[in-house]
């Protein structure tokens, strides 16, 4: 009997259990069975991956970058969601507030999500710096909800939006997933509008250490990519995890985050 690949995931939502039980059931019918271990935060998960306690980790982009940093790039990215390859950060403000670009944030108040959220904290600061806005140019408020989960819960971004609604900030930086969750400004036309969207970058990816043989991971990836949105057994899992198709990772999509981590002095470990 083939030993299951043990996959780590962070429990960012109650749906994580049905997602991974569904994944386990799916892979049980393939040549590459799996089991899963849930962690409360990404630091513990990456430690477990590097120590060999788990074979694969379902990592955020920051967890991937930190794993790569700790392994001198020896770890391997195996697969991502289709939605992970086109992730963006969206800067939003109250409708009609007159923001037109990042430059218009000069002298204004910007609220950020959790400090370990790539989309709502680390990359927004990077994009500001690219636009020529330094520490003294924008007043930043950080909302550190659910630190450790890299912004997965979305809670800090919702808190950031509340801060804008309550006039505690002029604008917020949030992930495209949260922007979509509130209807992209169409659902709440009098509430929010976006005024700048970042270039696309990569988000989550399955990560393996080099100690896990390609002979084990390649067939597993092939089975993963075979999950089908049109298959009624697969679809509920894909819907809950927020994708329509598993795809090969896009490594150059992590370049902006690698640069941001370096600029901001974010360490490889927690």
């Amino acid at each position: 009997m083939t030993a299951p690949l043990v996959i780590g995931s962070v429990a960012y939502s109650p749906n994580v259990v049905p997602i991974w039980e569904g994944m386990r059931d799916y892979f049980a019918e393939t040549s590459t069975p799996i089991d899963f271990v849930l962690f409360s935060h990404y630091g513990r998960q990456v430690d477990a991956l590097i120590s060999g306690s788990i074979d694969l980790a379902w990592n955020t982009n920051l967890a991937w970058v930190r794993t790569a940093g700790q392994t001198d790039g020896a770890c391997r990215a195996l697969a991502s969601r289709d939605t992970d390859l086109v992730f963006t950060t969206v800067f939003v403000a109250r409708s009609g507030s007159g923001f037109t670009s990042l430059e218009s944030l000069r002298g204004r108040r910007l609220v950020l999500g959790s400090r370990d959220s790539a989309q709502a904290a680390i990359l927004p600061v990077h994009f500001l710096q690219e636009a020529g806005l330094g520490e003294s140019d924008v007043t930043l408020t950080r909302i550190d909800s659910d630190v450790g989960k890299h912004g997965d819960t979305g809670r800090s971004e919702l808190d950031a939006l509340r801060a804008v609604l309550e006039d505690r900030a002029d604008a917020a930086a949030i992930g495209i997933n949260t922007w979509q969750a509130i209807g992209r400004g169409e659902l709440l036309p009098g509430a929010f509008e976006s005024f700048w969207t970042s270039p696309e970058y990569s988000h989550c990816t399955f990560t393996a250490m080099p100690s896990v043989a390609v002979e084990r991971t390649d067939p597993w990836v092939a089975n993963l990519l075979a999950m089908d949105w049109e298959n009624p057994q697969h679809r509920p899992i894909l819907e809950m995890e927020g994708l329509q198709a598993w795809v090969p990772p896009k490594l150059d999509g992590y370049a902006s985050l690698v640069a941001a981590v370096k600029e901001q002095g974010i360490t490889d470990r927690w």
Partner: protein
Amino acid sequence: MVSISVPAQPRSAESMAFSVVLDLIEGIGRVPTGRTVEVRLGEGDRDAALDIVSAWCASSGNEIVSIEGLTVTVLHGRSPDSLAGLDPGQLPGSRVWVYTNFDCNLACDYCCVRSSPKAERRAIGVDRLKQIAGEAAAAGVGELILTGGEPFLLNDIDVLVNSCTEKLPTTLLTNGMLFRGARLERLRRMDRSRVILQISVDSATPAVHDSHRGSGSWAKAIAGIRIAHEEGFRVKVAATLPADQMHELEPFHDFLDTIGIAREDQVIRALAHRGVADSGIELTVDSLIPEVTITADGVYWHPVAADHDDQFVTRDIFPLADAIAEITRRFVAHRRAADSIAEWFPCA
């Protein structure tokens, strides 16, 4: 860069309405699919907030389960389709029953609507029936089913039936005992290609049938089946049996075979504890798949309870599509409530 803490400003009504959606998104994220969360609307902006919550649910694939005052309960994900498991013929509105009169020449001891010679006539009338037939056809109803009391007591039963068959295939329930003279002529004026006669016979021999429906009624019913066949009508037989006799039906089926009733036209059902029946299975709104039923008094959930307030739906027969939609809405609500209870008990 600095981290600062700014005290909250008093919220505007508009901001509070938007905040409800943020609360809802956060709450939904904290429960697994299939569970519910509650959000509270502000008193001053209740309607605006409810509009936003409704729009968010519609666009995000979540579902409002209930609205009570300022509290909105939202399901993470969507409820399973309560109608999906039904046979197409069981969908509410796939067929519509109409009680034509209620009075009857028999006084069966199990009649679910208390029909008898003493029952007051409550006639639907040709004008209403024409409108029902027209609106039913427009609403996608596939069949009309007419029942009495005994419909052949009506002097215009042929006109009534023809007003239905002009629009839809129609089944006419009768005891089959009155096919003579003017009433036979009325039968002959019906469209054989569009009418099925459903005649009540409860047993293969007279004793049981007559004990419930009156002495001599079995022989007249069997004669009525023969006449209907001779006149070129398709005949179904419907039998009503005590639940404890439902396990040995083959001799009865064999008998019905001998009088020319096709097996698919042999309808045998358990006695319902309704009307004048002093025993039988209990049939409630919760336990019955509805069949839209119209009487002179309004719309009922099911023909078995068309004389009982607990299954009264609305006095408004028209627009018929609205009545069908209301019964469908109530059925879905009952199913979801039942599902919620089923989910709840294993957890208790």
